[in-house]
């Protein structure tokens, strides 16, 4: 009984915070969306802990709420955007149609999963083979033995993403060899730079 109550409290927190990201109750400030998303991540981390995924719950807070959302809030404050609006829908009644369709999809997925998992019971974590299930040692052993290739690939992916992000966020692409000299500070020569940026990516010199 207590498990169900805890689940519903956490689920309500997760879903309400996620809805507040998409439909902020106090205007359309992107910063409000970011704060709601952080709250949703904290509720999700609590739910991971109830699922005995301690490491994933900790990573959720450290990586998502700590790193990714700081990046988001930083960019929001850097751009200093005003509140955006939903704009005029292109089709009449599009919002109503979309809302109905979304509820239909959610109900459909719900039905499929309910029928598929009616008799599924969780494994008993008191058994000796599930000692430290979801802890750092358990998941670490899994990652560094049988999942070592994906782990290395994720490392390469993160490196590529960091280099790509730095290149994309650069103010001027001056390192491109045959770009015409910049007329003004804010990407006046972007036409030439954008077309040559991909070509010089492999052998370009800094």
């Amino acid at each position, binding site marked *: 009984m207590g498990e169900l109550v805890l689940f519903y409290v956490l689920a309500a927190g997760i879903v309400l915070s996620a809805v507040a990201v998409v439909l902020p109750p106090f205007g359309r400030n992107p910063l409000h969306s970011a704060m709601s998303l952080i709250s949703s991540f904290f509720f999700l981390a609590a739910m991971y802990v109830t699922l005995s995924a301690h490491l994933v719950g900790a990573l959720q807070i450290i990586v998502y709420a700590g790193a990714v959302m700081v990046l988001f809030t930083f960019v929001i404050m850097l751009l200093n955007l005003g509140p*955006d609006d939903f704009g005029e829908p292109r089709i009449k009644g599009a919002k109503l149609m979309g809302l109905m369709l979304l509820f239909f999809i959610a109900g459909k997925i719900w039905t499929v999963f309910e029928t598929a998992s009616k008799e599924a*019971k969780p494994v008993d974590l008191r058994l000796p083979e599930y000692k430290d299930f*979801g802890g750092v040692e358990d998941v670490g052993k899994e990652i560094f033995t049988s999942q070592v290739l994906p782990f290395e690939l994720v490392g390469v992916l993160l490196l590529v993403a*960091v280099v790509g992000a730095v290149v994309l966020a650069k103010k001027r692409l001056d390192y491109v060899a045959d770009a015409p000299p910049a007329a003004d500070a804010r990407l006046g020569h972007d036409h030439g730079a954008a077309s040559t940026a991909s070509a010089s990516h492999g052998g370009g010199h800094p």
Partner: protein
Amino acid sequence: MTFVPLGHYLALGAVLFVVGLAGVLTRRSALVTLMSIEIMLNAVNLTVVAFARYKGLTEGHALAFFNIAVAAAEAAVGLALTLAVFRLHKAVDIDDLRILRR
């Protein structure tokens, strides 16, 4: 010993995914769209972790770990693209955005 049925977690993941999908489809700000994508990734993560708990498989936790890493990479590149778009157009409205250059 009482337990929450697996279907509850899967349903919560599905609802969360649909909320994120609604955000991607309706909001016009690129930043909020990126946040909605994060919600969708988290919905998938929740589903994977729930299955891992019910089947007693640690592979699910490893998959969630990789998913978090990929989401972080996606956020970094997406925000850098948003910055580049903002420098060009002075706005991040993805409805008005058609080209990535002048």
